[in-house]
Structure formats: C-alpha cells, structure tokens
C-alpha cells in the first residue's frame, strides 16, 4: 500500500494586487484587487514506502506548496491527500510525530544552545523514550560525525555542520518519512557529499522514505531513482532519470582528446559542438550511429589519446522540458 497518496490536489492563492508607489499603497487600504494564482493544479502521485523521490521544478512551481500540504501546514482547496493513512491537516499531531522535515534554509535547532540541548528538547517534544533516544543519538553521532559538535552552540556552527545536526534532529524520533527541502543549498563540496551519502544510507538501511526537493541536479542524479517534475502547479513527468533524458532528446555526447590539435574534424553522423585545444566535443544520435561505430571511425581517422561518452547534463534536460512545455 502506498505511503503517500495524492489525488487531484488543488490550491489557489489569492494575492492582493497593489498599484506601485505610496498612492497605490493608500488606495490598497480601501479597495483591494486580487489576483488568483494556481499553485497546485490537479496534482496526483503516490509514493511507496522506502522510495527516494526527487521533487524538482523551478522557483514558484509549487514544490513547497506540495510539501506544506503533505506536512499538514497547508490545507488544499480540493483533492485527496493521505500520508500513512492519515489526512495531514486533520490529524496534525499524530501525523507530524511520524514525519521528519529538514529545511535547508532554516534550522530547527535552538540558536543559542549547544546542539545536545536542542536534541534533549526535541526528545521531550516528541516524547521519545529515553533508551530509544540514547540509541538514536549514538547512531546519528557515529553516522554524521557529530562527536565534537554536540557541545557547541548552534550559532557557532558552519553551514555544513549545522545541516548535519539538523538532519540528526529530524530523525531522533525515528520518522518513517523524511521531507528534505534543499538540503545541500549553500554547502561546500565535502559537506554536500556527506549529506548525500547519509541520505542514501538512511534510505537503504533504515528504509526511510525520502522526498527531496532541490535545485541541485547532482543531488538528483546521485540519489533519486524516481523524479517528479513539476511546473506551474502541474506534474510534467513522473519517472526515472532515464525517462527524463528520453523525453527530451536521444542525443549523446562524445568527448575526444586528440594527440595533436586539428583545425577540422567532422563526420557525417556527428556534429562538433565544442572545441578546447585538442579536446573536441561531438554530439551524435545513437539511432543513426552507435557509439562503438563512431569511436571506431574516429580512432581510425585521427590520432586519439583519450575519449569518453558524456550524458547531457540534467540541468539542460530540465530546461528543455520547461521550454518544451511552453515555459
């Protein structure tokens, strides 16, 4: 049975419109005009326990509105939403005690307190039994390397350290479901990798269902077997990363490093799209020429030092999907 079921979810926001300038502000006090924006437009999907789903889309696409509905913060205008058999906004307290939420931009720890004291407070808030709590803290400290951070006030932590502590904090009550909102935003490369590895392990070993919203396509490639692509309140694609690639174009890329610089390199089936010293990037259609054939052709015609096949970067694919859908 799916853990999350969303059916025909709709949400429209009413935004007050105001003429610019001071006069507009005064007029707005007496007479308001409203613009209706559809944040969710008949959204439907379902997620099975143990899935790791990337929820992606441009700013204002409806990502955070969806997450807010799933978390029980926002009530939709219409549609069905069931998380672990409950309607989030109708049973807020039982619902939120079984989910974990991490916002990359905001901490849920107490700013001026050492990390461990925030954990203690969360233990009391979620009513975690003492032995379970001790075990969980030990596990998190080991997995996320929090050892020396526990006694540091949160305001003195670096962003990467804080994010690791926030992840631990969201998991102390052992939620079956975790929403991560931009968990790697602003992090350095090492911290990003640490966060990704941790999320992957959490999903694999503990079977925690993870729903990840992000702008970082490397997060998606590294973590998600499944993608939900949303824009303007509609789901544009529900499938794997490969499905996403297939939807846009079959074109692949081959990067060739020549032994010596050549002014000219061309084949009938492939097109040069980039050139940097001896390194040439070719684009080809695998239906017209297979990668081995193209490689064979090149190696026999030119002196080749190195070559590799490259996938179209996922950012470009997503951008194309948006454009294709007229955005």
């Amino acid at each position, binding site marked *: 049975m799916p853990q999350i079921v969303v059916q025909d979810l709709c949400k429209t926001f009413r935004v007050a419109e105001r003429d610019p300038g001071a006069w507009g502000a005064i007029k707005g006090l007496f007479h308001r005009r409203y613009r209706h924006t559809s944040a969710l437009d008949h959204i439907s999907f379902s997620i099975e326990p143990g899935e790791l789903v990337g929820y992606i889309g441009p700013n204002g696409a409806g990502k955070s509105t969806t997450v807010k509905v799933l*978390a029980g*913060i926002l009530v939709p205008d219409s549609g069905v939403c069931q998380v672990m058999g409950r309607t989030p906004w109708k049973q807020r307290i039982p619902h*939120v005690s079984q989910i974990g939420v991490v916002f990359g931009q905001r901490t849920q720890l*107490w700013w001026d307190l050492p990390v461990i004291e925030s954990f203690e407070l969360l233990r009391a808030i979620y009513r975690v039994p003492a032995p379970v709590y001790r075990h969980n803290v030990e596990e998190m400290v080991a997995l996320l390397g929090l050892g020396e951070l526990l006694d540091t006030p949160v305001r003195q932590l670096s962003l990467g350290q804080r994010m690791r502590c926030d992840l631990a904090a969201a998991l102390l009550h052992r939620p079956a479901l975790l929403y991560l909102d931009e968990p790697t935003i602003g992090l350095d490369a090492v911290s990003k990798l640490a966060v990704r590895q941790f999320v992957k392990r959490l999903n694999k070993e503990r079977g925690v269902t993870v729903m990840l919203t992000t702008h970082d396509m490397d997060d998606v490639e590294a973590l998600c077997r499944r993608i939900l692509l949303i824009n303007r309140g509609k789901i544009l694609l529900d499938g794997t990363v490969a499905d996403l690639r297939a939807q846009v174009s079959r074109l692949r890329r081959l990067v060739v490093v020549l032994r010596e610089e050549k002014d000219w390199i061309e084949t009938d089936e492939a097109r040069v799209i980039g050139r940097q010293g001896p390194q040439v990037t070719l684009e080809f259609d695998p239906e017209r020429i297979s990668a081995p054939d193209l490689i064979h052709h090149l190696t026999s015609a030119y002196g080749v030092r190195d070559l590799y096949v490259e996938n179209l970067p996922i950012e470009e694919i997503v951008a194309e999907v948006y454009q294709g859908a007229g955005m």
Partner: protein
Amino acid sequence: MFDGLSLYGRYVAASIRSQMQYRASFIMLTLGHLVATGTEFLALWALFERFGHIAGWTLPEVALFYGLASVSFAISEGVARGFDMFAPMVKRGDFDRILLRPRSTILQIGASEVQLMRIGRFGQGLIVLLWSASALNVTWTLARILLLLWTLCCGAALFSGLFVLQATSAFWTTESLEVWNTLTYGGVETAKFPLSLYEDWFRKFFTYIIPLAAVTYFPALAILDKTDPLGTSRLFQSAIPLGGMVFLGVALLLWQVGVRHYHSTGS
C-alpha cells in the same frame, strides 16, 4: 497535562540558558528594568508627598492597584511573551516549524520567549505590593490573601489574553500593530490607578471590553474594604476577577480561528 507542564519547564530552562549566554547583557537589562520601574513609583510617591491624597485615595491604596497591575502584568510577560513576539515569527515563516511539532501551538509559543529580565518588573511590583500591604490599615485574613492571589492569577490571565489577541491579529496583518501596545502596555499603566478617577466611557471600556478593572480596581476595593464610589457590591467585586480568565478563554478560541486561517493561506 503534567507532560505539557514538564515540557513547558524544559522550554523555560532552555530559554534561560540561552539568555545566560549573554550574561552581561542580561544583568544590565534586569537592572535597567528595576531602575526604570522603580523611578516611576518614586514619582508617584513624590506626588502624594506633596498632595497627601488624590480624590480620596491615599498612597498605600494606590500602591495596591499599582502592585496588582505590575505583578500580574509581569507574570503574563513571563508566560505569554512569545505571543508578544509572534508577528515577526509569522513573517519569518517560523510558525511552520511550530506546526511541524507534535505539540499544541499555544504551549510552544507561550514558552518560546520566557524573559528572565522581566524579573525586574516583577520584583519592583512585588515590593510595592508588600509595602502597600503593610502600610494599609487592613487585617490580612486568609480570605483577603486568597482574594489577592486569585486576583493576581486572573490579572495574569487577562494580560496573557491581550498578548494572545495581539498575536492572533498577526495572522491577518503579519505586521505587529501599534494599537496592541496601547492596550497591553497602556493597559497596565491605566490599571495602576483607581478606575473612579477616569471618565465614564473610559471606565466602561476597561470594564466590559477589556476587563482590566475586573482584575485590579474591583477586587482591590474588596481587599481594602472600601465602598465603591461607583456603587458595586462586595460579591461582585470578589467574583468579577473571573472575567480575566474568561477573556483569556475567548482569546484562545480566536487564536484557534487564526491558526485555521493560517492553514488555508499559508501566510
């Protein structure tokens, strides 16, 4: 219930520890509070020193009103200050975090900003109240003491109710409105003096709309065993502090309406 109280205690302890991170600032603020409120009472004392009494009220009598208003306001600042600081919280989007935790919003917000430096106001109010109690020509029977404590509780409830209403309005305005400060901070100043000194419409407002008089003026008359120039009975004077509790109850109901509004707009 017990569980909620224990969590409340933890929040308070955490809040105090946070403030202790800035020890010097804490000490300065507390002293500042004590001095500021202390000077205020000195000015009152100087006034009575010059005129003896005002409209039939003596200094120890006025000190009773003053002490009741100050102490109950200080208690409410202690327990409901989070509601006073709520507008910026909504604006920052931090109310989402409150909703994500499996506890009542009222408990989480009330406990979120417990300010220890308010002990300055509390201490000063208590000193004035105790001085008044000893200077007044009143025998402190058990019934009087209980009425005094009951009045303080109801007063704290009333001021907390005002803070809750102020916070509730932020669900619609997101800005904190100055008008609420006139009711909370202005209210406590008003309640420091006998109601009979004020204009009729003003008296009605603070009796029936915001029942400040219910938690200061009327019960104080019963404690002082003084006839009300406005002609109310003893029974009325002892029962009316309940109005503060009712006020808080109504405020909390409106709060729930505000939370529902937030659920449907997300802002």
